[in-house]
Structure formats: structure tokens, C-alpha cells
């Protein structure tokens, strides 16, 4: 395997393409997400999205923030050649909701807010509370892992350029 820092920088576009594709899937192909997580899952863009358009020597960064912010400017940026570099997401399953940020280059989570759990009143409750938190973390990590695996399988196949990218271009153009 190639050096970690080299592969981090050389292939960070994979994470940014993943987030861009995920936005497309949320808008136009949500059934795919339900197939990957059949437990009545709903995924939506949250209150922040960051896009970057890299030219030869300059980087143009566009941040859209706000609970009810429209994403039209984001689509315009995509038309100009930008990709998504950070995204706030909401993941709902039944009555439970997780909110988190995903960064494209590292696919690291930040600001993860899992569903509320019962308060800890006694020392004996700590073990159960920790296990519950781990379960809740795992749930959303597994979901992102599954969606990313789906993306990578598509990305290394001919279907990426033959089918998926043309569909994304139509979405971006309209």
C-alpha cells in the first residue's frame, strides 16, 4: 500500500465526490438509501454545506448555512465545477435522529449528536449507558460505511462514467 500521507492527499477527491454524489442521491435517488438501510431511514442535508471550486492556483469556497437555507447557490457552484467538501447531515430512523458533519477529505465525523439517552442516576447505570452510546454511534457509522461502499463499487465500475455521471450532470444542469 502506498504511503498514508501520499494516499490521503492524492485521493481526497474520493471523499469529496462521495459527498457530492450523496447530495444527488438524497435528492434524486433516495430509494437507494432505503435499500441500503431498510429500517425506514430518512437522510437529509442539514444546516450547512461547503463547496470548493479549485482552479489552477486559486480555491473558491462557498458555504451555505442556516436551518432553512436554499441550496440553489450550491447547485450553481456545482455547475461551475465545484465539489462538496463538507456537509451537515440528518439521519432519521423511526423516532430517532442523528445529526453530524462529514468532511470529504477524511470522511471524519464531527459534531455528532446521537438520539437522546436516559440520564445516568446511579454508578451501575454507566456500563449500560456506554453500551447504548456505542450502539448509537455504530448505527450511523455503519450506515455511512454502507453508502460509501456502494459509492466505491460504483466509482470503480464502468457504470460511473457511463450512467451515474451523466445522471448527475442532468441534475446539476436543471
Amino acid at each position: 500500500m502506498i504511503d498514508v500521507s501520499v494516499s490521503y492527499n492524492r485521493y481526497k477527491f474520493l471523499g469529496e465526490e462521495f459527498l457530492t454524489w450523496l447530495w444527488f442521491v438524497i435528492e434524486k435517488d433516495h430509494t437507494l438509501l432505503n435499500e441500503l438501510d431498510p429500517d425506514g431511514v430518512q437522510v437529509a442535508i442539514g444546516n450547512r454545506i461547503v463547496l470548493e471550486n479549485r482552479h489552477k492556483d486559486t480555491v473558491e469556497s462557498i458555504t451555505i448555512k442556516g436551518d432553512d437555507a436554499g441550496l440553489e447557490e450550491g447547485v450553481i457552484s456545482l455547475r461551475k465545477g465545484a465539489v462538496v467538501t463538507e456537509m451537515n447531515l440528518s439521519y432519521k430512523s423511526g423516532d430517532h435522529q442523528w445529526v453530524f458533519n462529514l468532511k470529504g477529505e477524511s470522511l471524519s465525523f464531527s459534531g455528532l449528536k446521537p438520539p437522546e439517552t436516559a440520564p445516568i442516576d446511579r454508578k451501575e447505570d454507566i456500563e449500560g449507558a456506554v453500551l447504548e452510546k456505542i450502539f448509537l454511534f455504530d448505527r450511523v457509522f455503519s450506515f455511512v460505511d454502507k453508502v460509501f461502499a456502494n459509492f466505491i463499487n460504483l466509482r470503480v465500475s464502468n457504470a460511473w462514467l457511463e450512467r451515474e455521471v451523466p445522471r448527475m450532470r442532468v441534475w446539476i444542469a436543471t
Partner: protein
Amino acid sequence: METLVAGLKKNAIREIDEDPADKVVGWTSFEKPYQPDFEGNSLSIGTHWIFSLRIDKKKIPLKVVQKMCAQETFRKLTESGREFLSRNEKKLLRENVISTLSLRIPATPNIYDLIWNYEDACVLFLSNLKEANEELETLFAKSFKLTLIRLFPFTMADLNVGLTDADRDVLSTLTPTRFNE
């Protein structure tokens, strides 16, 4: 489990409040981060080992260093009757000032929790800070003789997705897609 506890104890955090050191990195326990205790049941929960990385740092304000250096320079010049200190003397004086201040300023602890699922051979580190992640990799290797592989888009694709060898070859040749026509 014994190997884990031995590695944690050997590299447990030590207090540096009465030590001139300005930084220390070590393991601590999840439940008692200020009194590390790796005995008992608190370390193991289900199929997970849970403990924390602690990084203690002394932050001496630059202006305090400047003030103490100026006072110390004045004292030396007055005592010796000289007008200037050599570059070497100034350097030594600054080092002494920082060392003296380090003994007086308590270290600020930073605690980062870690969940090690030993059945899945997977470590979840609850921080994105570059320094904390680098210290984790170093201390983990030193303590347990195991190398952590950081998961980011390429390593996730290469190691976690279950690609065939042919697909992994394709992966390594990928270049960015242009989504605008």
C-alpha cells in the same frame, strides 16, 4: 487483557506540575481520568475496551516570558556592571526563565476517549485533532506493539469495502471526475 493492562500501566500519564517538562502524553482511565486506575471492571464493557488518551500541556503566556526575561536581563546587567548580554547568555537566560515558569504553571489536561472493539479489531478515537491523532498512533504502537491504520476515503475503499484485486487496481488509477460539462 493482561497485555493491555500492562501496556496502559507502563505508559500511563504522569503528573508534571512539579516538573520542568512542558508536555506529557499518556493513558488514563475513562472513569477516573485524573486518577488513572486500570484495575477492576471499568476498562472492559461488552466486547470493548474503553480508556482515554491524556495530553497535558503547560501554556506559558509569551508576554509573561518577555517580562521575566526583561527583569532577569536587568538584574544580570546591574550585578555585572555590563551594558549587554551575549547572544548565548540571552538564550540561556530565556531557557532558565521558561524552566522556572514551567515549575510554577500547572499543566492543562486534555482527554480524548478511545473505544477499542477487540472482536472487530477496530479502534474508535473520539477526536479529529491532528496532534491528538498523531500522539495516539505513536503511543498505541509503543504500548501494544500494534500499528493503527487511519481510515480515510482511500484506506476505507482499499481495505474495508471488499474490492477485488482488479477493482483495487482500478481504484489506484482513479482521477477526479468533472461533474459540469
